[in-house]
């Protein structure tokens, strides 16, 4: 199975450990993984700011890097969703193939690799932060607003990890307030949302806030560091990799 690894730009620059964990995990699971060397960004920062028309070159670069693979996997629900919904490179056929074959990590492990057990240990109480784009966009978990059967692809995988327990949150799928450029253009509300999200985890005594999107985690980590909090953030790949 030829898998291309898409590492979002800010993970490449600031959280290489998340990318390394993702690569190692996929290799352990038997995938033949390639990291196309000229990749940059999914184009979401421009598009969500209203400048979709400026992401054309970014889209074309993405298509050039990721054409011809069976699957493209990324440790980010948000960037994956953006590609799925908005990638429109000049090469239509290649763009369509990519949009249909890009997967967020937990989605890929669940739906394609059909992982049933993992050799991983993490003896800690964690709080799971469901990122909105992963959850409501990619439907990685059931949404609290809908009258429908509950499920969570991420939770199912985390439950395979020895020693790990997940605390119950008061608001299981409230947004953390990162929101791309929203985090600076609407700084006051963004930070308040982040603080409230953190409090939900701390008051239920989570030792780690775990999520499938580093952007949410980076935002909450920034606030917690300023607060002098002991709680750390972890991406699911770092835990599932053992």
């Amino acid at each position, binding site marked *: 199975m030829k898998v291309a690894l898409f590492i979002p*730009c800010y*993970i490449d*620059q*600031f*959280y*290489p450990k998340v*990318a*390394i964990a993702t690569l190692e995990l996929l290799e352990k699971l038997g995938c033949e993984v390639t*990291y196309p*060397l000229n990749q*940059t*960004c999914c184009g979401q*920062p*421009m*598009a*969500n*700011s*209203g*400048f*979709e*028309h*400026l*992401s054309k*070159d*970014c889209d074309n*670069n993405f298509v050039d890097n990721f054409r011809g693979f069976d699957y493209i996997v990324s440790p980010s629900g948000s960037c994956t969703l953006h590609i799925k919904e908005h990638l429109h490179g000049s090469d239509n056929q290649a763009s369509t193939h990519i949009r249909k074959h890009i997967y967020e990590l937990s989605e890929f492990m669940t739906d394609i690799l059909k992982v049933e057990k993992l050799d991983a240990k993490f003896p800690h109480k964690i709080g799971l932060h469901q990122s*909105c*784009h992963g959850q*409501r966009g990619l439907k990685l978990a059931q*949404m*609290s*607003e*809908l*009258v*429908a059967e509950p499920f969570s692809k991420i939770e199912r995988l985390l439950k395979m990890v020895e020693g790990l327990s997940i605390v119950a949150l008061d*608001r299981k*799928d*409230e*947004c953390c307030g990162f*929101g*791309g450029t*929203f985090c*600076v*253009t*609407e*700084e*006051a*509300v963004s*930070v*308040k*949302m*982040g603080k*409230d999200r953190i409090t939900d985890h701390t008051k239920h005594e989570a030792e780690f806030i775990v999520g499938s999107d580093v952007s949410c985690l*980076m*935002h909450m*980590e*920034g*606030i917690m*560091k*300023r607060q002098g909090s002991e709680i750390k953030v972890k991406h699911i790949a770092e835990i599932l990799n053992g």
Partner: protein
Amino acid sequence: MSSIKIDHATASVEFNKDEAHVNWHDETLWFVRSKRDKAVFQIPEWEQLREAGSQIKNHVLSNMHDLLLEFEEKATANGITVHWATDAQEHNEIIYSIIKNEGVNRMVKSKSMLTEECHLNDFLKEKGVEVIDSDLGERIVQMRNESPSHIVLPAIHLKRSDVGETFHKHLGTEKGATDPQYLTEAARQHLRDTFLTRKVALTGVNFAIAETGGFVVCTNEGNADMGVHLADVHIACMGFEKIIPKAEHLGVFLRLLARSATGQPITTFSSHFHKPREGQKMHIIIVDNGRTKQLGRPDFRNSLKCIRCAACFNTCPVYRRSGGHSYHTAIAGPIGSILAPNLDMAQNADLPFASTLCGSCSNVCPVKIDIHEQLYKWRQVLVKEGHVPTFKKLGIQSMAGVLSSPSFFRMAGKLGRFLMKNTPFVVNNKLNVWYQQREMPDVPKESFREWYVLRGEKINEEEKKAL
């Protein structure tokens, strides 16, 4: 009411200066969202009900012309006078002419967001007509010379103590009173007198039925009924999208509306009006005010499906932490942010950006409006029409330049990380908005790509040695 526009982000900074108040506001509205959840989870077929509501409304949008004419014909036959208003000004003038014809200079009015949208109260005040809002929340904000901060709960930004103070000033209640029963009793006596003495009463319309020419008004306080039953003239105002084809469709919408709004199975009063009682006059004003334009925008037309339940307000994490007044429009919240730019792009260009696009609004919407997707689409329109600040445009343009070129991206990344590590003051200062309340991420010794290339080289070397 001030007409000076303060944008959403700036108003939110102000709102967030009192964190305890923000917490209270957030929790109060979250409580309403939770009540909604409890109510809808008792209906196993809830999602089918939403789908039905959505489809009926889609049908309405595609048959607007015929349904409105059918309604006019039936309503006229029932003895109701039907008026058509192109815009807010015409709507207000029609109402004034009816009041003037009756030879009175005062009116009682139950909740109508359309009259807020048209700024009716200000218009009539200038003409020397006194309007008293009879919905308790609306009466409170009216006394304070404020606008409603929420379409279902107009005074939700106020605490009991604020209400006590307002009533002390305007109704002469005891100073410092906060007992809800005492305060509502005072409002009750005050409004009772209003109901008894006004000859003209105005209501909104929740649903107008093409098939029958009748309409339904939903309230929890019975104030609409009190007003119109005691008045000689009933004026009902509706945006044209309030039309539904058949009376049987009320079975879908009345079930959806109250559960989505407050978690009640149905509003306390769902009053059906079909014709004026003997000796009474009944007028209906059907208003466009930009709705035709919105109906002509393929990406945004289905915002007109809205039944004004405010579920999207209550679930919106941004609304809960910025308050309704930060939206500076009659209809705040996520739905207001996709309706307002249609009316005035320049004045409301900030609103579609007042969202993280988390998508919760679209999930609670009882008629399945794709609110967060329309927020995204409005952003594209607003940028293309030139309604974003130049500094933002320049910033995004340079970002697009960096991210479109792999080598430029790597160079910029390397330089950025170098500066953050060696000269952190370049980044960690007050010009960096992120840094105001958040630390920057730690700088790793290498990017993932650098690590990956090195790993490749090491593997190659090992393979060579092995040979």
